[in-house]
């Protein structure tokens, strides 16, 4: 901004020139102060509930919450006087007053924002011993556990669920000390409209939301000598898991993770990126078929499990627009128990299929009965990036210094197109790289589609193939998905192909990714960008960058599936979706009579 339009404020007796129209907190952020905060998140509406961010303003009778108080020219702000420090400390002390004293056995120990805040405030013992909360944990969901005893009512989950994800599952019910964050009617999560995306876990400063933990079950199975243990992991896991080991954001740890999984006890480690390539073969062919036969269009991607549950609940009228392709995880799992088991002469029942995912919704997906093949569940256990990181630490594996290893064959080789599946726009870009060639018979020269990269909520692009123009849309985060679907409802012919990922940034911002580190915030844009860059760099480093050029994918078709959309492919790689109507759906599609 033009310097003449800046205003002058004083923070702790030092003068600063800042832009007008911001809050005290935002202005202070630009001056090298980071006022302690809790309920505030830059992506969410301002609640001003926790009062942790109070500051003293000269001439004001009371302390003001800096997250929601605008700066003014000549304002004198004090962030660190004895009084304000004392008051802030008391506020945090009262917040933990009814919080369980179980930090050392808590899931979030060492990763807890509240814990860090308590430490920073200098609270070294408890002055107040007040009433504690005693509620049942909600263990009903396949993916997310709700533990109201740990909740400090900052409301970030509620705002995330409604403002970013548009699911509106969570609300604050009752009042005062009895306030509890819960779905409508205190319904169990499993019966609610929850999409299982896990973003409430990401933004929760404590352990009031955590994923359903499958690590113990997995450790047990890994010790079962009668099983052949097979692992796969998603593209974005490699771009984020390093953060859980103190590595800088966006460091690709693919080889280290392969090596670590082998040391955990897996016999084979395959890559979900292989089946991402396979997804492109199937979905690209599906797109071409629909373009040629005239529908149903737009074709909408089906890789994101949270999006699938959301769609079944809120947009069931578009079920036939959804690609029938299973997600890459489920495609790979299907192959483990058929193609690969056959090849290895193994009883599919003796194959333990495990997926390490950036996602809590994949736990829900894995349990879907419609994904069974020959009566067998194909993905036996899903663990999140966080759970995998914990298992590696717990097993005493030197993750950071381990020598990187390569994936096993034949389900471990992938193209760069499979890699970028983990970031918003990636599935679309990968599909275009293949569909263009299948459609036109020509090679796409500039394979990087920049219109649909980046963190803008809804992205649109046009691709010309043989004179036919495709209008495509990409959305990430379910709230943005809602926007795109409303556009489609208005005009069914507006787009021909739509990519939707349920989480902000795509899978890289998944509900199962490492917690924000001490110097970051949940879903920090810089962090998402760094994770995305890791995948784009990996794509660029590969010689094979188009799914249809993957020789192992070609071999799979040659040896087993025949061709894309063949009967065999349909049996193993495709599925169907059904309308779901849990209570609490405010359907925008039902006409209000």
């Amino acid at each position, binding site marked *: 901004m033009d310097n003449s339009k800046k205003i002058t404020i004083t923070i702790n007796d030092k003068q600063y020139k800042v832009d007008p129209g911001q809050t005290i907190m935002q202005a202070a952020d630009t001056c090298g102060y980071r006022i302690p905060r809790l309920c505030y998140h830059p992506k969410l509406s301002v609640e001003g509930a926790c009062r942790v961010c109070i500051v003293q303003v000269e001439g004001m009778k009371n302390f003001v919450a800096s997250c929601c108080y605008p700066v003014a020219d000549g304002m004198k702000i004090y962030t660190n006087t004895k009084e304000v420090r004392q008051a802030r400390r008391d506020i945090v002390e009262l917040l933990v007053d009814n919080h369980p004293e179980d930090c050392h056995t808590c899931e979030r120990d060492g990763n807890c924002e509240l814990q860090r805040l308590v430490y920073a405030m200098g609270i070294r013992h408890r002055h107040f011993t007040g009433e504690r909360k005693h509620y049942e944990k909600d263990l009903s969901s396949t993916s997310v556990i709700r533990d109201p005893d740990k909740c400090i009512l900052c409301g970030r989950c509620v705002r995330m669920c409604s403002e970013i994800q548009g699911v509106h599952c969570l609300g604050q019910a009752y009042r005062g000390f009895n306030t509890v964050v819960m779905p409508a009617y205190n319904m169990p999560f499993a019966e609610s409209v929850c999409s299982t995306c896990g973003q409430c876990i990401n933004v929760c400063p404590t352990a009031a939301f955590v994923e359903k933990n499958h690590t113990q079950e997995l450790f047990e199975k890994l010790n079962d000598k009668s099983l052949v243990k097979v692992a796969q992991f998603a593209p974005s896991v490699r771009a984020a898991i390093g953060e859980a080991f103190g590595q800088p954001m966006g460091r690709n740890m693919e080889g280290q993770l392969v090596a670590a999984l082998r040391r955990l006890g897996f016999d084979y480690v395959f890559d979900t990126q292989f089946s991402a390539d396979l997804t492109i073969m199937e979905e690209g062919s599906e797109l071409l078929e629909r373009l040629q036969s005239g529908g149903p269009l737009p074709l909408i991607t089906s890789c994101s499990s949270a999006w699938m549950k959301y769609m079944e609940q809120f947009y069931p009228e578009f079920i036939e627009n959804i690609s029938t392709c299973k997600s890459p995880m489920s495609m790979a799992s299907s192959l483990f128990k058929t193609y690969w088991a056959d090849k290895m002469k193994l009883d599919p029942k003796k194959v333990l299929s495990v997926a390490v995912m950036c996602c809590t919704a994949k736990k829900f997906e894995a349990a879907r009965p419609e994904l069974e093949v020959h009566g067998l569940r194909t993905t036996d256990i899903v663990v999140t990036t966080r759970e995998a990181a914990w298992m590696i630490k717990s097993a005493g594996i030197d993750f950071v210094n381990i020598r990187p290893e390569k994936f096993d064959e034949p389900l471990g080789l992938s193209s760069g197109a499979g890699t970028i599946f983990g970031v918003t726009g990636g599935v679309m870009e990968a599909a275009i790289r293949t569909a263009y060639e299948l459609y036109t018979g020509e090679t796409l020269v500039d394979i990087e589609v920049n219109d649909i990269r980046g963190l803008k909520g809804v992205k649109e692009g046009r691709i010309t193939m043989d004179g036919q123009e495709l209008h495509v849309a990409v959305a990430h985060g379910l709230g943005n998905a809602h926007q795109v679907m409303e556009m489609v409802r208005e005009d069914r012919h507006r787009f021909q192909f739509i990519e939707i990922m349920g989480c902000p940034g795509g899978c890289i911002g998944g509900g199962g990714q490492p917690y924000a580190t001490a110097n970051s915030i949940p879903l920090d844009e810089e962090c998402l960008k760094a994770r995305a860059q890791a995948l784009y760099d990996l794509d660029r480093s590969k010689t094979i960058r188009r799914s249809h050029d993957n020789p192992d994918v070609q071999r799979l078709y040659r040896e087993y599936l025949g061709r894309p959309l063949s009967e065999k492919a349909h049996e193993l790689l495709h599925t169907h979706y059904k309308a779901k109507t849990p209570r609490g759906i*405010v359907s925008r599609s039902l006409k209000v009579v």
Partner: protein
Amino acid sequence: MAKTQLKEKTAPVVDDKRIELRKFIDEMKTKEHADSHLIDVLHRTQHLYGYLPTEIMDEIAQAMQIPTAHIWGVATFYHYFKLTPPGKYEISLCLGTACYVKGATQILQVIKDELKIDFGEMTDDGLFSLGPARCLGACGLAPVVMIGERIHGELTPKKIVQVLKEYRKQAGKEDGK
């Protein structure tokens, strides 16, 4: 292309109360900041049904396009709103200062023992439900309860048992008819 038809879970029963409520909602929706009239709509619902049935809250959510979790938040926030059906006789036990000093807690204990219910609950036979009141403006008669529209004052543990007995008798008579 065949359109996937959305099916309603169960066809909503159309009765007089629903028609009246829907009319009221439609009227509220014409106003500015229609969302903010949710409390009015919940008031009307309680007036019609005696409490806030969850099925009706589902329907309000749909009609007003307000998420159910939000409606549930408002419904649970205010003590006035009842989430369970009221008994035939609704007992409001005054816990205001005067009644409290004059032994309201003793009366409460007797009611709890007699009826085996707590605040917010209804007896199995559907006759009585119990709720707290802050002040009924009858401090001179403390301690008091209001049952239905009637005030019963200067209560003692013995007297309240007698009062409850009379209501039971009355209900029996009405059933007999």
